[in-house]
């Protein structure tokens, strides 16, 4: 308890062994089975796969956001020369290294979009080009065009995967050489990497999620998405670290102190998410301008208001009050409860961001009928309209994430020669 540094326990099991490959197999199995179920359910919807693709974007954003969050932890700890996280950093690196596979999974909605699927993003619909009906959307369509969207998607994929692979590779290299200069290199690289990272996170959130409601805009949207992403990421990190410990690995190295810090991050981002979500809401509520309030109109009235209230209570108030105490973060079953809770509500957050745009309104313009897109018409006509495919696609994509993580759980599960590891092992919260 009292030492400032502590060596790695001699009996510690630090090798991944078969853990990675079994996780990959499980992940692939889940992904395949649930994707088949989803495709069947999606085809039965009779809405030209619209529900399926909406659920796909939610599920994909979910696994994407978890990688986004853990990559932040990795880079931040290099940037500020953090100590406590060194013991869990290799696991975070493995999670962030799922990026390439996640981006391949995302092609599941990007390729149909490029091939002319018009029911997912309204801006890809021909009626979005109507210069009278969609006057202010008309001007955005150079940016929001399927081809350019796909180009940006590839850029985001390359940027995120590159960052994740760089830090993982250097870290593993240090396992071999033990060269402290590698820590220095990663620290120097992490500063520009952080700038690139934040730009790419915000742009990706604007493109993939905010453009679901293409006429609406909020400059803080990317920050808010990132807050939610980090809540989910730290919750997922806690569960995966615990899962690895349950296989008998790393049992001496990772203790309540590390869980406590993961819990602190989860708590902090829970509040951060609420703070930015409220910032976004309050300015638009106060400004009361129709082009901004429309996004909230369909969330605060009709059926969606109950989901909004559930978000306020479930994603913020309840976990915030209970995670205030240090004991809810240090006692592992309690932390697990809140991690699972926040992972569910992180999904609900993405659902709440995407699904209210599902109902598109067809209006009569003279004699022609025109699709006016999402967030139009009477709020009472917009239903939460929950469908089983929402869940099955999500589970399938979580399977993809698990497979991506499993592929990278190999070799040492802890950066054995990192100079800060003895500090991390002796880490203690005052």
């Amino acid at each position, binding site marked *: 308890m009292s030492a400032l540094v502590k060596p790695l326990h001699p009996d510690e099991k630090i090798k991944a062994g078969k853990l990675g490959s079994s996780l990959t197999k499980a992940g692939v199995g889940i992904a395949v089975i649930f994707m088949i179920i989803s495709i069947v359910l999606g085809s039965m919807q009779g809405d030209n796969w619209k529900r399926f693709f909406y659920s796909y974007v939610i599920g994909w954003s979910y696994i994407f956001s978890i990688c986004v969050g853990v990559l932040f932890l990795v880079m931040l700890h290099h940037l500020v020369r953090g100590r406590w996280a060194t013991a869990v950093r290799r696991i975070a690196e493995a999670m962030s290294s799922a990026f390439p596979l996640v981006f391949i999974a995302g092609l599941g909605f990007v390729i149909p979009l490029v091939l002319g699927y018009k029911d997912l993003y309204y801006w890809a619909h021909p009626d979005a080009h109507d210069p009278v009906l969609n006057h202010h959307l008309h001007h955005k369509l150079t940016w929001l065009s399927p081809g350019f969207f796909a180009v940006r998607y590839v850029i985001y994929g390359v940027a995120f995967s590159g960052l994740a692979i760089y830090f993982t590779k250097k870290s593993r290299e240090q396992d071999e050489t033990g060269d402290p200069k590698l820590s220095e290199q990663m620290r120097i690289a992490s500063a520009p990497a952080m700038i690139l990272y934040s730009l790419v996170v915000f742009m990706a959130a604007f493109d993939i999620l905010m453009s679901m409601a293409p006429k609406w805009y909020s400059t803080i949207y990317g920050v808010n998405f990132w807050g939610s992403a980090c809540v989910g990421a730290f919750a997922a990190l806690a569960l995966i670290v615990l899962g690895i410990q349950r296989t008998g690995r790393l049992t001496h190295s990772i203790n309540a102190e590390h869980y406590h810090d993961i819990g602190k991050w989860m708590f902090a981002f829970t509040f951060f998410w609420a703070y930015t979500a409220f910032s976004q809401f*309050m300015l638009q509520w106060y400004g009361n301008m129709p082009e901004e309030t429309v996004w909230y109109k369909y969330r605060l009235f009709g059926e969606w208001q109950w989901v909004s209230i559930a978000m306020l209570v479930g994603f913020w108030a309840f976990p915030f009050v209970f995670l205030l105490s240090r004991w809810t973060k240090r006692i592992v079953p309690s932390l697990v409860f809140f991690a699972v809770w926040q992972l569910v509500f992180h999904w609900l957050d993405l659902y709440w961001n995407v699904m209210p745009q599902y109902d598109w309104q067809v209006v009569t313009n003279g004699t022609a009928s025109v699709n006016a897109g999402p967030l139009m018409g009477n709020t009472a006509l917009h239903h939460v309209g929950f469908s089983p495919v929402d869940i099955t696609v999500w589970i399938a994509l979580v399977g993809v994430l698990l497979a991506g993580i499993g592929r990278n759980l190999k070799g040492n599960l802890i950066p054995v020669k990192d100079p800060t590891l003895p500090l991390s092992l002796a880490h203690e919260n*005052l």
Partner: protein
Amino acid sequence: MLGDGALYGVLAEYDTPGELIEAARKVRDAGYTEFDCFSPFPVHGIDEAMGIKRTILPLLIFGGGFAGLLGGILLQWWTNAYNWPWNIAGKPEWSIPANVPIAFETTILLSVLTAFFGMWMLNKLPQVWHPFFRLERFGRVTDDAFLLGIEARDRRFDSVATTQLLKDAGAIAVENCHLDPDPASRTMPGWITAFIVSSTAFALIPFAIAAKARNSHSSEPHIHVFPDMDFQPKYKADAASDLFPDGRANRGQLAETVARGSLNADDTFYRGIEGGKWTEGFPKQLEISEQLVRRGQIRYNIYCAPCHGYDGRGSGPVPQRVAAGGGAWDARNLVQAGGPVVKMPNGQLFNTISNGYNTMMGYAHQIPPADRWAIVLYTRALQRSQNAAVDDVPQEELGRMPMPQMQTPAAPAGAGSAAPAAPTGSAPAAPATPAPAPAAGSAAQPENK
């Protein structure tokens, strides 16, 4: 050793934080309770080694934060919804979203203040005088010394055995600490007490001044805290100035100049004069249309109807209010057949609206010229309608009008006798409405029709 007062305790120095922790554990295990550790920085694990219970400070902070939250909401409810209801942007007077930022700030404020002052209080700070301060060694505690002090009041304290215990625990030095023989040195130094008392008293002065000002009257001028804001080097309208020969700060219009947009050269449009006389027609730039009549109606109902009434008979809400108060006054009847207003040329009517007549104020400042002309036009229409004869109604409309008095042969006679006498008195004009003579109707027609 300084002085020779009673023994306060012993102070041991250790080389490293680790040794300090080990020593603290040994002292605790030996059963001592009245001891403390001193180090230049927080040492991980020292509280556990000393057997200190976890602080209750987080609970206090939670309480403080919660009080801040409730206080912030209460503050906004009291100020904005209860004591002085205030409409901001059409939002509800007590609106939770608007309260969130303030409540957030007050929550943080009270949490932080509770954390800061709670820490001081729980640590019994500020402690400006402590026996260990007398030891030179203790001065290094903020620099590089790791110290452990045991007080003599501990029931296990024994000057020899305790010193031995500390030495066995690896102390590089152990020394006794005696109280100052002078009891005065153990109290707060006089100058600190004096400073606290005087600064507190000084801080209360503004409140005292404010309290006095609220409860007394004064003939003295205001205190000007920012005189350069209260007295700015500029002139207000119609102020005096020594700079100019006429002693006025206002510089009037220069001769032979016209302010932009103020030429108003068109006598007919701006003054109602044509060829030196009141114009009988309307300015040529106005298109006489139904739209202009409706414009005139709206302006008339805003500016004229309060006195002259919607029907123009001079019994609007203001005369009615006079009557209700026991007085008797009517505004001019604008529609009286053969009356002065009916006979007035359009130009004179325009001039009356612009510049007033008797007790009526001019409306040139409130109503633009085109609107004044629209009112003239509407007044003409009112005169026409209020003096209309049966012949004025188109034949096809006539059959559809439910007018019982039209069907009785006595009606024309009754109307004939009532019409000349009716409206000027204080009697309400209502019963006389459908009456008067065809001649008045034709006289009231606008000239250009």
